[in-house]
C-alpha cells in the first residue's frame, strides 16, 4: 500500500479503468440486467466463444439474493460490485498483468504475501468451466483468475484470461476497514453504507420474505419460453438476456426457499439449456459474419 492516503472506492475503480485502458482494453459500462456475477455479462460469456480476439474491462453490479444479511453482516451483501477483465486470447504475461494492476491500486507485491491458490472455476448454470486460482493477498482472496475452457457447453477454441476483482473486499483491504458499510466511497465523507445500507435491508426483506413466488415462477416460465423462441430465431443476445432473467428469477425463488434440493438441479439444468442455445446461436452468427 502506498504511504499516501488509501484509495476511496470510486478512485479504486478509476485506477483500474486507467490501468486496463492503457493495456488496450475496451472500458465498458455495466450490463443492464440483473446478473449473479460479472462473468455472466454477454461481454464475457458470448465474447469468450469463437476465435475473434477481445479485450474488455468493466464494473458489473452483482446480485446474489440469498447472500442478503439485512445489512447486519460486515462482509456479506446481496448486491455488490465486481471488476471484470476479459483478455482473449490469454496473454502470456496474464499473471504479471494482474500483479501490475495491484501496484496500480497501491498493493506492492514485494511487501505483501501474494499467492495463486488453486481454484477450478465452474458455473453449471451456464455450462462453463475453467482452470485458475484464487489470488490471495496476505491471506485475503482479492481476485479470481480463470483460463476459460468451456462456455455454454462449448469448448473455447481461443481460451481467454478472466480476471475478477471483488471491489468491496479489495477496497476494505486497501482502506483497512472492518465493515463494508464504513468504506470511504468518494474521499469526501460519503460512506458505502450511506448509499447501500437501506437497499441491503429492503432487498433482504424482498428476497427472503416478500417476493411473490407465484409471480416469480410465472416470470421464470415466460423468460424460458421467450429465450428458446429467440434462440431458434437466431438472435443470440436477446435470447441470452432472457436466459439471464431466468437465472436471476431462479436465484430469487431459491432465496425464498421454495425450491427443494431435488428441484434445484432441474432448474439449473433448464437455465443451462437456455445458455447453451444462446451461445450456439451467437457462435452461428459469428461464423456467418466472418
Amino acid at each position, binding site marked *: 500500500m502506498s504511504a499516501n492516503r488509501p484509495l476511496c472506492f470510486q478512485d479504486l475503480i478509476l485506477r483500474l479503468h486507467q490501468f486496463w485502458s492503457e493495456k488496450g482494453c475496451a472500458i465498458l459500462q455495466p450490463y443492464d440486467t440483473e446478473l449473479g456475477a460479472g462473468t455472466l455479462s454477454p461481454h464475457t460469456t458470448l465474447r469468450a466463444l469463437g*476465435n475473434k*480476439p477481445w479485450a474488455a474491462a468493466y464494473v458489473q453490479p452483482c446480485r446474489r439474493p440469498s447472500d442478503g*444479511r439485512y445489512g*447486519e*453482516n*460486515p*462482509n*456479506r451483501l446481496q448486491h455488490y460490485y465486481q471488476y471484470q477483465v476479459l483478455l482473449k*486470447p*490469454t496473454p*502470456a504475461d*496474464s*499473471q504479471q498483468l494482474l500483479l501490475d494492476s495491484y501496484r496500480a491500486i497501491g498493493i506492492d*507485491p*514485494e*511487501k*505483501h*504475501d*501474494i*499467492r*495463486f*491458490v*488453486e481454484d*477450478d472455476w465452474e458455473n453449471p448454470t451456464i455450462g462453463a468451466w*475453467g*482452470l*485458475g*486460482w484464487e489470488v490471495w*493477498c*496476505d*491471506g*485475503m482472496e482479492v481476485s479470481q483468475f480463470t*483460463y476459460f*475452457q468451456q462456455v455454454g457447453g462449448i469448448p*473455447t477454441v*481461443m*481460451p481467454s484470461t478472466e480476471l475478477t476483482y471483488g471491489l468491496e473486499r479489495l477496497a476494505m*483491504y486497501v482502506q*483497512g476497514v*472492518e465493515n463494508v458499510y464504513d468504506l470511504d466511497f468518494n474521499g469526501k465523507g460519503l460512506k458505502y453504507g450511506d448509499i447501500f445500507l437501506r437497499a441491503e435491508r429492503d432487498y433482504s426483506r424482498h428476497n427472503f420474505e416478500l417476493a411473490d413466488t407465484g409471480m416469480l415462477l410465472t416470470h421464470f416460465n415466460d423468460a424460458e419460453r421467450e429465450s428458446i423462441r429467440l434462440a431458434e430465431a437466431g438472435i443470440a443476445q436477446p435470447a441470452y438476456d432472457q436466459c439471464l432473467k431466468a437465472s436471476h428469477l431462479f436465484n430469487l425463488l431459491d432465496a425464498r*426457499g421454495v425450491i*427443494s*434440493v*431435488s428441484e434445484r438441479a432441474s432448474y439449473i439444468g433448464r437455465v443451462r439449456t437456455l445458455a447453451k442455445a444462446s451461445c450456439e446461436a451467437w457462435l452461428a452468427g459469428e461464423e456467418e459474419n466472418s
Partner: protein
Amino acid sequence: MAEMLLELFSEEIPAGMQSRAAEDLASALTKAFDGLAPRDIQTFFGARRIAASITLDHEIPARTVSERGPRESAPEKALAGFTRKHGVTPADLTLEDGFWVLNQNLDPVSAETRIADVVPEILWKFPWPKSMRWGAGSNFTWVRPLRRITCILDGRVVPFSLARDGDDAHGLRSSNLSEGHRFVAPGAFEVTSTSQWKDELETRSVIVDVDTRRDMIRTGIARLAAQQNISVVEDAGLVDEVAGLVEYPVPLLGHIGAAFMDLPAEVMQVSMRINQRYFALRTPEGKAAPFFAFVANLPFKDGGALTTAGNERVLSARFADARHFWDLDRKTPLADRVPALDAVTFHAKLGTQGARAQRISTLARHVAEAMGLTSQQADQAYRAGLLAKADLTTGMVGEFPELQGVMGGYYAAHDGEDSATAQAVAEHYMPRGLGDDTATAPVSVAVALADRLDLLAGFFAISETPTGSGDPYGLRRAALGVIRSIRDNALRLNLTDLFSKAAGERTGGELPRLPDFIAERLRVQLRSEGKRHDVLAATLAGGLDGDLVRLLARTDALSDMIQTENGRNLLAAAKRAANILRIEDKKDGPHTGQPDSTLYAQDEERALAKALDEAIVQTQQTLKEERFTDAMQAMAALRPVLDQFFEAVIVNAPEPEIRANRLRLLTKFRQTTALIADFGQIEG
C-alpha cells in the same frame, strides 16, 4: 555416465497434484531411457515447477533388433503391411522357421538424441488429472500454462522443441535457463548441474526440495509456538498442502482477537484450515490459544509485520462471519429445527431428512435396548437420534459442512439437553474416517450405529449399492463404521435382527445381500490389519454370524489352532479327505448317512468313528459356551486317530460296501470340522 536435469516451469500448480506429477515424470523418463540404464533418480516439485534428475549412460550401444513378421504362408497383403510398417522391402527380410523376420542393425544412439526424441512426447501425453488449453491455436495442454523447459545433460542444453504437425506448442523449446522466486528474484539464470540448480534456486529464495520445505514449516511453527508456551495442532495434510503453496516457507504467528475466543475451538480450527490454510494452536491445558500460525511465501524486510496484520484482519472477518452464525443459530433451539428437516430431501427414494431423523430415533432406542442400556439411556438415544440431523439447518453447518454433529452437540448443550444426549448428537458421526476414533459413550454408540444401519438398510432396499470404485453414499464407510463401533466396544449384538429392524417395512431390493456386504467389509478390514482373511472366509462359510464379536473370537481361535502342529496336520487331513470325497462323490454321488459300525474292517476305522462322536459332542458343547479355544482343541485332538486312519486304511477298498462305508466315515469327519469352519477355504 551423464547427469540429466529436466525442469518444467509453469504457472502455479495445484498443491494436491504436484507430488504425483513428479512421480509420473520420473516413471515416464525411466521407461523411456530403458536403454540408457537410468539410475539415481531424484524428483522435485513445488508451486511453480516439477523436475527430475537422472544419471544415464552416454549412449545406447549398437545392437541388432529382430522382429518376427507374418508366416511364409500368409497372404501377400500381410507381408506388404509388415514391410510398409518398417519402411523396408521384402529383400531385407530373411526366412526363419517358416516366418519372415526383419533383422535390423541399429546404430548407437546418444543419450542426447534419445532425450530430444522422447521428452516432447512425454510432455504432450503427460497424465495431469486436469489440464488446460491457453493462447491462440496450440493444442498442447498442461495443468496451467507451461512457461519454460530446462533440459541439460552434463551441463549442456539438450535442444528440442515441442512443436509438431504444424502446432507450434506455444513456441516452447528447451533451454538451460531456470527462474527463482517470482518476487524476490525475478528473471532467468543459467543452469549447469542439478546441485548448482538447487543451490542457485535457494539463493533465489526457492527451496526446491519438498521435505526441506515441510521441515521448515513444521519446525518454524513449533519454534514460534514454543516462544508463546503453546503447541501446534498436528496436521500433516495441511503441512503438505502449504508446502505445495509456497516456494520459500516463512512461518509467522498472528493474534486472534479476544472477542472471538468464545467461539468453539472446532469452529475456529475449521475456518482457519479450510478458508485460510492456517494452523491452530493450543494452550498447555489443551484449549484454543489466542494465536494462529500461517506460512508466508517470502521473507519480508519488515519481518512480516505488514502481512501478519493483513492476515489478522482477514481472520477477524472470517471469525466475524462465524460469530454471526454462532449467535444466530443459538436463537432457535435444535428441537425446534426438527420440523424443518421435513423440507430437506435426503434422497428422492428414501424421503426427507425429517423422516430419516424419525427412523434413526426409533432405531437408536432399539440398539440401546439391544446393548442392554438403562431405559433412561434408551430415552437419551431416542432423543439424540431425533436431534442428530437438526444442525443441517443451521447457518454454521451450511457454511462448514464438516462441522455437522459437532455444532449439533454445542447447540444441544446450549439448549439444555442432558449431557449424554448432547454428546451423542456431537459424536454420532464417529468414526468419520479411517483415522478417527469410534464413539465410546454408550448412548453415542447407539445413535452412531442407528445412523449407519438406517443408511445401509435404506440404500440396499432401493438397490443403490456400491459398484467398483463408485460409492456415492459412503456405504462402505458406513459398514466399516458399524464394524468398528461393535469391535471397539465389544458389543454383543445380533446384527441380523438389527438389519431387519432398520429395514422396517422395506423389503426386497438388495437387502438380502446386506449381511454379505458387511462380511466383505470385515474381510477387507481384517486383511488391512494383516490378519488371514482366508481364516475369516472359513468361519464365514455358513453365512454371517450376526454377532461379530463371537464371529471374530471364533476366527481368532481358529487362526491360533491352525498354527499349532496338531492344527496343521488336522488341516492336511481335512484336505486329504476333501480330495478323496470330491473324486469319489463325482463317481457315485454324495456318501451321506451314518457309517454302519458292523462294516468296519479295521481298528483304525473304529477309533476314528469313536473319536468323531466324542469330538462332535464336545465341540457343540464348547461352542455353545463360547469356549472357542476349547472347541478348536477338541477338533485338533482328532489328529492322532486321523493320522493312523490314513496310514493304515485304504479308503477305496475292493469290497464295495466297505468302500462306501469308509467314504461315509470321511463325510462324517468333514461334517464334524464344519461345526467350526469350512476348512476348504483355508489356504496352504
